[in-house]
């Protein structure tokens, strides 16, 4: 009994310590003494790996999600004789919810896991300690550019996702289902507000980018430096960041749209 209690306490304390380490990584790599000139080429390279290479999966899934939304929305709305509202439905659900959330989930699977595995392997092969030995701060050299890259890329990817999805929905509903083009776009433009919907969606994407990259980088940096440890850390990255994104999404939605 006492042993179990002690184990529980130990577990809680080590979780708390992990939070502390995560916070320290965040602070040391972002806030303390940024070096924009040295970081810029590294940042460009990371944006390439994290953002440009994620583009294909984002565009393809955005297109299909938009098309499915158009199709499903049409079959429901046609019963009420208001199939023109399908544009409004597709645009609002994409811009407010699906674009930031699905992008963040795909991003966690595509880029977050890669970040964790890369940093974890660097740790396992003692590249990080070698950097430290030659007087280069691995937090600034390795972690900070990856952090900023995730932070910058996710909103861009989410915006592309939303736009591609809306055009996918337009393709299905205008060209295949024969909704009048003018009312499709006019209904959409009447109901979507730039500041309330588009900007709030992008704010969500920024928050998700922050959380997903933070978790990915921390799990990589904090992993047990063995092949098993790296695999565990990669799994943890995907699981934790998906949960964090979905939970955070509810909170942000409640604050932004729920009139709290």
């Amino acid at each position: 009994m006492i042993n179990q209690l002690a184990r529980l306490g130990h577990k809680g304390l080590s979780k708390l310590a992990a939070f502390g380490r995560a916070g320290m990584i965040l602070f040391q790599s972002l806030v303390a003494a940024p070096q924009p000139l040295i970081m810029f080429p590294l940042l460009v390279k990371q944006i390439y790996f994290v953002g440009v290479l994620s583009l294909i999966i984002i565009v393809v899934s955005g297109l299909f999600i938009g098309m499915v939304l158009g199709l499903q929305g049409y079959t429901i709305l046609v019963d009420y004789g208001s199939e023109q509202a399908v544009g409004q439905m597709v645009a609002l659900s994409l811009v407010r919810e699906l674009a930031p959330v699905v992008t963040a989930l795909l991003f966690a699977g595509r880029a977050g896991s890669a970040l964790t595995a890369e940093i974890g392997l660097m740790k396992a092969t003692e590249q990080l300690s070698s950097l430290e030995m030659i007087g280069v701060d691995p937090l600034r050299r390795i972690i900070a550019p990856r952090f900023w890259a995730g932070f910058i890329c996710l909103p861009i990817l989410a915006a592309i996702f939303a736009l591609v999805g809306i055009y996918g929905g337009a393709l299905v509903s205008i060209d295949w289902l024969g909704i009048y083009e003018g009312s499709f776009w006019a209904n959409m433009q009447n109901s979507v507000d730039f500041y309330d919907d588009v900007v709030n969606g992008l704010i969500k994407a920024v928050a998700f980018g922050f959380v997903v990259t933070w978790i990915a980088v921390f799990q990589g940096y904090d992993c047990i430096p063995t092949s098993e440890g790296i695999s565990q850390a990669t799994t943890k990255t995907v699981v934790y960041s998906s949960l964090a994104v979905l939970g955070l999404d509810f909170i942000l939605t409640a604050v932004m749209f729920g009139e709290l």
Partner: protein
Amino acid sequence: MRMRILEISVGAFIVAGALALVGLALNVSGLNVSNSDQTYTVYARFENIGGLTPRAKVTMSGVAIGEVNEIILDKDELMARVEMNIYGDVDFLSIDSSASILTAGLLGEQYIGISVGAEDDSLKDGDYIEDTQSALVLEELIGKFLFNEVSE
């Protein structure tokens, strides 16, 4: 060379993101930059605004000429006061124009329809539209109908 391709693709990526944002702004949300700074304000008092909300459109003969900016309760008159922003190039609304709250379709959103009167003077910034017609509230209509049925 490898670095150059990488830089170009990152640049293209960021430009694509910016373009997507512009597309979302202009094409999807219909953000209108040109009309927003040249509007004038007109007020109208309504007995009942029904489901009218801010950002609802103000139309004349079905053409949008502005939007509802703010709806407050006027304490002195005990009526709803609706503040409308009318586009600057629509400067020919006569002072005896009437405003009514209409509904788009059976279940659609509510908007304000303005019909122009006969006077020569036109509404200026801050003027009130005196002749107003309230929103049609379905419950009141049904109530009246039932009342008539009973009294017959």
